[in-house]
């Protein structure tokens, strides 16, 4: 059995693995919007699997950075799902997806400045009040930065967590991808995040988008093994934050479950290594 802190993303391809083999992971995470109708076979599978595993609901649709505010109908649907699933975490991203009532299937970043801080604070407070639960905010993967940003993203997240009471979901792959694309230090980012806010860590793989000779952007593609660089960040994150709920995410080109489990075991070994030294800190 792995440490109860180690979980994996639950995807359709692995439903039967969970039901027949009961793999030794501590918890699972699903994308809320895939189950938000509370109907269909996928929902039925989730209901069966949650009998054996704690479930975290990870949203991609609250659009917490949207200037037009929150979609109450969507929040009502999410609340119904939350009431049924009773998740260990509810999370979404530091991003926006909705404009003029149209939903874009992408996590679009906002500038990190006072206006954006006020907007996120207002929307997160409203979402937490409506849902009656704390939500965790995930750092986005970014391919550019805004001219109008006045904060570093890590500082922005700390202030937001402080002002709303929301936790931080640190996606280490996103930190690595963003740091590469925008030329800053991923380690400094980690070191600046206040440990008390960190409730969950995501680990995933990235891919490369080669634009020209010696020119490339890293993509947060969730379609491969966790990279060595991100494992290294994970080890450092554990030293900084201690044992934290950790999730292996894999959303595209989904492998056989054994591969996912192998990644979870690797995360487990890092966690055990840190726990062995825990008392030293």
């Amino acid at each position: 059995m792995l440490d109860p802190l180690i979980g994996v993303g639950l995807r359709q391809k692995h439903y039967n693995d969970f039901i027949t083999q009961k793999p030794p992971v501590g918890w699972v995470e699903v994308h809320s919007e895939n189950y938000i109708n509370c109907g269909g076979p996928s929902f039925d599978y989730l209901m069966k699997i949650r009998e054996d595993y704690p479930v975290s609901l990870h949203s991609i649709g609250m659009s917490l950075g949207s200037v037009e505010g929150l979609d109450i109908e969507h929040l009502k649907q999410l609340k119904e799902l939350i009431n049924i699933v009773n998740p260990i975490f509810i999370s979404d991203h530091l991003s926006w997806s909705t404009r003029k009532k149209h939903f874009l299937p992408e996590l679009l970043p906002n500038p990190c400045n006072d206006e954006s801080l006020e907007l996120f604070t207002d929307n997160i407070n409203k979402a937490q009040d409506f849902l009656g639960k704390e939500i965790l905010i995930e750092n986005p993967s970014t391919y550019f930065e805004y001219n109008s940003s006045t904060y570093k993203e890590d500082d922005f997240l700390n202030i937001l967590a402080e002002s709303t009471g929301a936790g931080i979901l640190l996606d280490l792959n996103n930190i690595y991808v963003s740091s590469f694309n925008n030329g800053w230090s991923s380690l400094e980012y980690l070191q600046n995040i206040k440990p008390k806010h960190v409730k969950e860590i995501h680990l995933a793989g990235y891919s490369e988008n080669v634009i020209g000779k010696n020119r490339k952007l890293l993509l947060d593609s969730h379609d491969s093994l966790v990279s060595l660089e991100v494992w290294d960040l994970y080890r450092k994150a554990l030293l900084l934050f201690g044992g934290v709920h950790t999730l292996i995410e894999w959303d595209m080109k989904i492998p056989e479950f054994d591969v996912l489990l192998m990644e979870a075991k690797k995360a487990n070994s890092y966690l055990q290594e840190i726990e062995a030294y825990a008392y030293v800190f």
Partner: protein
Amino acid sequence: MSSELTIIQDKVLKSIFSANLGELDFIKRFGDISAKDRFLIHRYTVLENFINSLRITYPGIWKLIGEECARGVALAYSHKFTNIPSQSKISKFGANFPDHLKKFPSTQHLEYLPDFAKLEWLRSLSHDAKREELVDESDLSKINLEKLESYKVKFNSSVFFMTSKFPLLKIQQLLDDDGHETINLQEEDSYLIVYRVDDKINTAALSQSSWHFLLSLFEGKTLRAAFRKARKMEFYIELEEIFKFILSCKMLTQIYCTNYESRDESRDESTS
């Protein structure tokens, strides 16, 4: 709020959907990668996610017209703002795709295509329907036979009706069975009912009479009114057979007796 953020979000939106990228003056210059190359990551992600969503909902359309053509049609569909739903209706993305196929230049000559797409859309709705308490054959014993004509039924939310002047089920069989030969796409009426049993989505072809009779019940008519309507259309209904079918296919959530007869139903009765 007409703020800087609103302006930025509008620019992002415009740049994702316009043929030409709009002003990207909000992007900070860094390194030797242009603002355009950086922004295109988001544009491609949005459009690819839309196309993937359509591919999942319309697998038959993808097979019928091929990947290249299907991507083209899907891309054009995804560029139309009116086709993009709100957050709370994310699962409704693709609802207008059958109409889009009807009007799109490279597919409009394939007259059967919109109907086949509509069938695939209904199958996706059926798939996502909430699970409900179902009526089984033992519940039939509770029916008061003396009041049989006043009974109504409620179908579960995975049940959908549609008609087409094309042999849609034969097209489906052709797609499912690679060894299948050719089919004649000449007009051949289809009376279809889509429903889910456990995890499986089914499509059944009914006789015209059974389809109309069940549709009347689906619309809330009593057995008597549904019968009368069928009789007016000169249909013969095998009640026992139909009920065996809908019960074995787990389509009903309720069978109940009502004394209330709507004005329409009374009119049906009085005119028969």
